[in-house]
């Protein structure tokens, strides 16, 4: 299988066929499969009764998901681009994410939100963001960022069986759709349904000199960087966090303790987001084992510019991961 879009769509189909509670809603989920393919093929199979195109009303279809989840359904909702969260965020973080807690446990909120993230193909400031940091910051969401088709299928099936709001952030350059560049790999993905538990990071490459932690498309980029680093004799371990919430800090800490050097790579904005959080957790658990300050590479707190040279100046590339990792590998305990 090539790409997470096929994997996610297959997972939904498999679960939907046995679970009448599942209904798919959002803009353009029928003919266009939610634009990025996450709902491909479902309309043909289940029809407009269970695959519902909504008007362009994010706050309302997110709120409808809350109401439907409270009355026995499991809505799968498409937020076409994550950039559009601002048009419906209230229903997400103040209700979907809180109603179970506020109700003292009476109303579970089994909602699966699918959203497309990331840049690198020229879609500019309002269609290239990542923003999972915003969801990870507010309590009540599980935050899932698959980097492989295998993971995408297993994590989606887990989400569809979870009684809580789960947001699946699918990177556009991993979808495998023909109209976008593809940075993933052709993979063997079992046809039968399987689940992957949340909160388990994956060590994608073992290494001893330094640890690179990443999510989404930054995982394959980090792996490519690791190959280049290997040519320089630098042996990088690459960890895919897979879920930001729950976060598998143990795996990160164990790796940091082993290598003593950590680079966190992120396509979200740099400040007040994933890189800071992971750094905190790593230093808390591996303080005495760190040989150098933790480094990070992320979008340097600017909107994503349109023009190619500008865009590639701000989104972490294989080259820049290599550069940062090299600097880190050479870094003595710094006094900067």
């Amino acid at each position, binding site marked *: 299988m090539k790409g997470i879009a096929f994997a996610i769509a297959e997972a939904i189909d498999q679960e939907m066929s046995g679970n009448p509670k599942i*209904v798919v809603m959002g803009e353009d989920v029928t003919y266009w499969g939610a634009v990025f393919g996450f709902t491909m093929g479902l309309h043909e199979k289940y029809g407009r009764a269970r695959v519902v195109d909504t008007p362009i009303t994010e706050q309302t*279809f997110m709120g409808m998901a809350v109401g439907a989840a409270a009355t026995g*359904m499991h809505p799968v909702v498409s937020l076409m681009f994550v950039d559009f969260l601002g048009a419906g965020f209230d229903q997400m973080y103040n209700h979907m994410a809180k109603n179970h807690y506020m*109700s*003292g*446990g009476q109303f579970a909120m*089994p909602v699966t939100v699918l959203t497309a993230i990331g840049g690198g193909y020229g879609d500019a400031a309002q269609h290239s963001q990542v923003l999972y940091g915003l969801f990870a910051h507010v309590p009540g969401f599980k935050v899932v960022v698959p980097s492989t088709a295998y993971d995408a299928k297993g994590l989606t099936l887990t989400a569809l069986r979870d*009684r809580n709001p789960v947001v699946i952030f699918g990177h556009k350059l991993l979808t495998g759709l023909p109209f976008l560049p593809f940075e993933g790999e052709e993979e063997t993905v079992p046809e039968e349904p399987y689940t992957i538990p949340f909160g388990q990071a994956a060590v994608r490459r073992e290494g001893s000199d330094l640890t690179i932690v990443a999510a989404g498309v930054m995982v394959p980029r980090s792996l490519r960087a690791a190959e280049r680093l290997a040519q320089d004799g630098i042996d990088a371990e690459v960890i895919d966090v897979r879920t930001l919430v729950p976060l598998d800090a143990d795996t990160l800490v164990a790796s940091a303790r082993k290598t003593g050097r950590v680079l966190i790579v992120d396509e979200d904005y740099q400040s007040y987001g994933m890189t800071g959080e992971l750094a905190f957790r790593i230093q808390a658990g591996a303080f005495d084992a760190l040989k150098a300050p933790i480094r990070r590479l992320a979008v340097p707190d600017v909107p994503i510019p349109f023009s190619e040279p500008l865009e590639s100046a701000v989104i972490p590339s294989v080259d820049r991961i290599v550069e940062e990792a090299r600097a880190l590998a050479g870094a003595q305990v710094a006094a900067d």
Partner: protein
Amino acid sequence: MWKPEPALADLRFLLDRAGLTREALLAQYRQMCLIRDFEEVIAARYAIGKTPNFNMAAGPIRGEMHLAVGQEAVAVGVCSLLTDADAVVSTHRPHHHALAKGIDPGRLAAEIFGKNTGLCHGKGGHMHLFDAEKNFSCSGIVGASYPQAAGAAFSFRAQGRPHVAVAFSGEGAANHGTFSETLTAAALWQLPLVIVIEDNLYADSTPKWAALAGTHQSHRAQAYNVPAYLVDGMDVIDVYAAAKRAIERARAGHGPTVIEAVCYRYRGHFEGDGEDYRTREEVELWRTLDPIERLGKRLIRLGWADDATLAGLREEAARDAAQAMTFAEESPLPEQREALMGVFA
């Protein structure tokens, strides 16, 4: 929205048409009294520790407190038509809806006091009342009730269950984009949804004239192909009659309805409100339309009750409200460790 008081024969005609019996009216009277008493004792309990200097954090009930004294007829007129399985999504001003939906006054009061016996074990509080058995939820965010009720309506339809979902809101809330968005959704999918706007003329300190482009929010429904009723929210019979049609239609699969009920809140937006945005005279004027007194007078005119019957019902209501307070006050607070539990199911 003031309508002429119907002559006795006309009143009988109206009741007949609405299918309202003596028993039903007496139950509505009692329910409205319960709400009134409940709100007033909450007001009294809320004031404890807050005088002479009003401090929101002091006393047995903390935080903001939005009461619905004066608006009883809307909640009762609508909710007396609902079953437990029908869904209600309420707002920052939710007690009257909760009681009218049949939520236990003791567990309601306990939640308002933050007690462990409360509906949400003290985690929700006055603006976040949830009762899964009564299919009741609410939100402190203005405009948030509409889509959630539409979602419940969608879900009932998808599951082939004959229930209806009701979203309550204020007239201020209907300025929020979610109102028009939900009208579109409800009309498109012909959802079994009833949107009830309690038009009490103010949103916080902001009078309707300063915030509404038209005179009534219900007028907007038509533009979305949603039928609407504009009713006298100080008259439980008028509310009931419209709600009955709307709810029956929804159950029958004929789609959504908006009901705008013009009413008035006698107390401030929240307890402690200085109310310098309105006149005392206006408040007094509206009190002359009191929904409980009006229903009482009609019951007497109809010969369906005498002063003693009514006094009896009022006493029962007062007793229930008092018992609810006692239950709440005597209940234990939750334990601190509970705070960290229950983010996820």
